């Protein structure tokens, strides 16, 4: 029957089936990538850590590949210190900018300034590294000379560069979470006789809290993972962290020696990768918990 609604062939149109499978494969690409990356990070990093000894690796204070000494405590502490300092400085500054953009500036000005924020976010890390090396490192030199320390790249320089690099992340996430606060929160607060600034501090920012916190966590992730810019300003000596002395961060620990490492040395670098990866996964889980909580409250 020419006009029948029955299928011509036996089964569903083959093209439909093929496309269904193809889309599924694409959908699973991210899942497969994360699984593969986790697998390879563990498979290549864990044996090294086992060989060196977890305690010697994680708590060892001396990194000397020639002497087969692979302690990364200085790297871990340097990463944590640099990130911590950067976040402590960047968060208040970013919040101020976010409040200005969302509550004080007019529409025109805000959109022009947001463009600058996006530009700041888009500048490649190597460019930040170059700017840091030319503009920030010499400033720190003055402090070093004053204190009789040798002039070099330093943990402080790295932190300053990180502040600048995580600013746009925290600003833009904060801006969008403040935008998401229902207008009535602000209106109610104003109607109760608060000043505009009181409303912002007491009503708007608390309502945007989970968004702002997730912005901060994202910033932490970005800071702890940054490599090139930090490598270009930090001096990169694997010693325990002091602000005005050179410091080597975890990321730099991998990239600096990658090209000429081999054998157990290369494996140790995989070990650093695994430690860094563990940090990042903790941050990711933290982030998704915050987001879920924030979402649940809405």
């Amino acid at each position, binding site marked *: 029957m020419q*006009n*029948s*609604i*029955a*299928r*011509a062939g036996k089964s569903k*149109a083959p093209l439909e089936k093929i496309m269904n499978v193809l889309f599924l494969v694409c959908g699973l690409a991210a899942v497969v990538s994360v699984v593969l990356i986790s697998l390879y990070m563990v498979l290549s990093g864990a044996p090294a850590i086992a060989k060196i000894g977890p305690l010697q690796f994680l708590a060892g204070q001396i990194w000397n590949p020639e002497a087969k000494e692979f302690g990364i405590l200085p790297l871990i502490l340097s990463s944590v210190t640099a990130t911590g300092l950067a976040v402590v400085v960047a968060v208040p500054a970013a919040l101020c900018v976010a409040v200005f953009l969302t509550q004080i500036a007019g529409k025109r000005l805000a959109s022009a300034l947001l463009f600058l924020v996006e530009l700041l976010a888009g500048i490649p890390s190597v460019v930040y590294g170059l700017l840091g090396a030319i503009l920030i490192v010499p400033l720190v030199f003055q402090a070093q000379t004053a204190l009789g320390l040798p002039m070099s790249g330093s943990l402080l320089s790295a932190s300053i560069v990180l502040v600048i690099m995580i600013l746009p992340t925290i600003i833009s996430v904060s801006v969008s979470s403040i935008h998401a606060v229902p207008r009535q929160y602000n209106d109610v607060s104003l109607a109760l006789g608060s000043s505009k600034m009181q409303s912002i501090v007491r009503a708007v920012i608390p309502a945007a809290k989970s968004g702002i916190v997730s912005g901060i966590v994202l910033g932490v992730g970005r800071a702890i993972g940054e490599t090139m810019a930090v490598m270009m300003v930090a001096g990169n000596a694997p010693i325990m962290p002091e602000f005005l002395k050179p410091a080597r961060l975890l990321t730099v620990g991998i990239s600096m020696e990658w090209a000429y490492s081999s054998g157990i040395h290369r494996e140790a670098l995989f070990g650093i990768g695994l430690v860094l990866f563990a940090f990042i996964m903790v941050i990711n889980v933290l982030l998704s918990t915050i987001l879920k909580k924030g979402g649940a409250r809405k």
Partner: protein
Amino acid sequence: MTKITTENLHLHYGENHALRGINMLIRPNKITALIGPSGCGKSTYLKTLNRMNDTVPGVAITGSVLLDGEDIYGSTVDVTKLRKKVGMVFQSPNPFPMSIYDNVAYGLKIHGIKKRLLMDEIVERSLRGAAIWDEVKDRLKTPALALSGGQQQRLCIARTLAVSPEVILMDEPTSALDPISTMKIEELMSELAKQYTVVIVTHNMQQAARISDYTAFFLLGEMIEYDETQQIFASPKDPRTENYITGRFG
């Protein structure tokens, strides 16, 4: 003679028993109106007739719907062929963001008609069939979204006609339109019934009374009464139908 036969049709959305044993014979080349208060299942029933409920998550359907004697829920049915044969016009006009011409030609293209001349001919015939040809013939290449709401709805009817359906389902097709556009579409429907079987869901009882040949009254997922329109409106058999028609509830 029947075009569509519905037998003991039940439909569940998860926990919600939305259709409760519908039995109904829809006659060819007639206009059948489905009336009833909101949530009574009339739209849900309409959508089972071309399986537009299939994609709703958690939907379960039992019973049968026969179109020209073929079970449309049978395992060998090609849903795209079914929907070509049973076209649908939606509540608010939903032309694609393309030109007027491309909107009407869309169905032809996806069903493999590529010859330009044939396409031109069918587009014109469909637009004439939907009583909109004179208004748009000079601007077929302009965006469909620039048309007025009433014109958009007639364009959507033309788009449906282009794939030469046998049944046209209309889900409150005039509820988003102004009175003048509504009148035009009502006139068009009587015209369409000469060639097609039309099933229309409407909130507007006057509309059902004006245009339809048969009327079915739905309430809480059940079909309460189904008869010739004149009969239903003149002397309904079920008191619930009477209450609804006289406006005592709903």
